[in-house]
């Protein structure tokens, strides 16, 4: 359902993403790991169609993210880094806008908005301007807009950043509940989150895929046999590629 095939992106001569390849199938939750500036967000932006790759291609639900952008984006729910939203709008208004942009109207729109707001546990905050909400509620408002149209593919850039432990548990439970019907990518710095909800993890550093394993197999790559030590070992400046399975192509 998600394909990244030798994606390349350079900014001002610096390669931010260097031949990144992977595939995510329905039912998989892929954890995207890596230090800041590793190329995670850039890769997700290229898959989401808001950034064009300099090389390679990305596809969502069989549609090319650059050449068939609108079809691909119709199947996609995307939560950008920082969960940007319109501060003067209420979460309900924001979710309605997202649904209306995808052709929803009338009772179908209202029902989908209600469900998304409930799944994101917005409660009474759904009626308050987003600019007045706490960071956690703002993130949930953006998450509600991303999931409202029940897309086949979800790309969530740090979905639990800034949430308190209870809110994190809620979002993780939501992702786990949606997982069987969707292909999901989440980027995170929280390694416990990867163990809790991801079926697979890709570790990216310097724009390149350093490892593509199940969370358990990835942990074993670390000297201490856990994810933090694997992360440190694989992302250290002098770290060498321990496991690299790029280029698994769609069938």
């Amino acid at each position, binding site marked *: 359902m998600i394909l990244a095939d030798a994606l390349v992106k350079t900014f001002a001569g610096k390669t931010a993403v260097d031949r990144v390849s992977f595939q995510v199938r329905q039912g998989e939750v892929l954890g995207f790991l890596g230090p800041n500036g590793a190329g995670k967000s850039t890769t997700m932006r290229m898959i989401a169609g808001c950034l064009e790759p300099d090389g390679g291609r990305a596809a969502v639900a069989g549609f090319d993210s650059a050449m068939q952008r609108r079809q691909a984006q*119709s199947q996609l729910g995307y939560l950008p880094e920082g969960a*940007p939203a319109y501060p003067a709008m209420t979460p309900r208004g924001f979710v309605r806008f997202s649904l209306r942009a995808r052709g929803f109207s009338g009772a179908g729109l209202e029902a989908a908005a209600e469900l998304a707001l409930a799944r994101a546990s917005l409660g009474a905050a759904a009626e308050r301007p987003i600019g007045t909400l706490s960071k956690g509620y703002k993130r949930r408002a953006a998450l509600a807009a991303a999931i409202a149209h029940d897309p086949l593919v979800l790309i969530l850039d740090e979905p639990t950043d800034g949430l308190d432990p209870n809110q994190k548990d809620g979002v993780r439970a939501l992702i786990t509940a949606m997982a069987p019907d969707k292909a999901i990518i989440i980027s995170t710095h929280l390694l416990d989150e990867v163990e809790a909800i991801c079926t697979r993890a890709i570790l990216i550093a310097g724009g390149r895929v350093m490892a593509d394993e199940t969370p358990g197999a990835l942990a074993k790559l670390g000297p201490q046999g856990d994810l933090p030590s694997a992360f440190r070992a694989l992302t250290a400046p002098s770290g060498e590629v321990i496991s690299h399975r790029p280029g698994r192509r769609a069938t």
Partner: protein
Amino acid sequence: MTGLNAVYRRELAAYFQTPLAWVFLTVFAIAAPSLTWRAGRLFETGRADLAPLFDYLPWLLLVLMPALAMRAWAEERDRGTLETLLASPIALWEAALGKFLAAWSVAGLALMLTFPLWIAVNWLGSPDNAAIATAYFGALLLAGGYLAVGQALSAATSNQVIAFVLGASACLLITLAGLPLALDALSAWLPGAAAEALAELSALSRFESLRRGVISLPDMAYFLSLIVLGLGAAMTLIDARRGGGR
């Protein structure tokens, strides 16, 4: 068209969810009649028409339209919502046109706030209402042209103040190009044909015939071209961002 409808409704609501539309409409409702009465001396001309209003309207519009357009893309870029917009299945032309039509609707509402003046001159005399209606139509087209130029420059920066300054400067240039002062200066620097061609691009001279009640195809084509060019430039600038990051 679902994207166009969604963006139009969101943008129109955004104007009224913030103080922007209210401040804009209040300033317009005060400034337009004040200029007409005081500077234009509406009641001292002895004529039942709205010429004093349409004398000053272009100058008011060239300041207020960039203020209305400055947020169009600059705000999206500054807040990061441009990424959300670019990741949604909304065509860029739908987003640009939706934003433009929302701002144009507010501009139309502002022009309607001057209708009491129209009613007043009808009460005082027998004006040529068809000519006044044509002048209002011309003012709406002029506002549209300024808005499109403002939107294009809003797409060039993430700072709304810079977008406003650039937009107002560009609108001033296309307005001044038709004045004798500018024409004299241009003729000193440019060949006669080039100076004349630049004068033809003046929004003020195009508005002049409409304000006199004359609808001509070239004038209509000029304003529609200005709108299309402005929106096209905005779309090009935003689309270029897909290739270069947020």
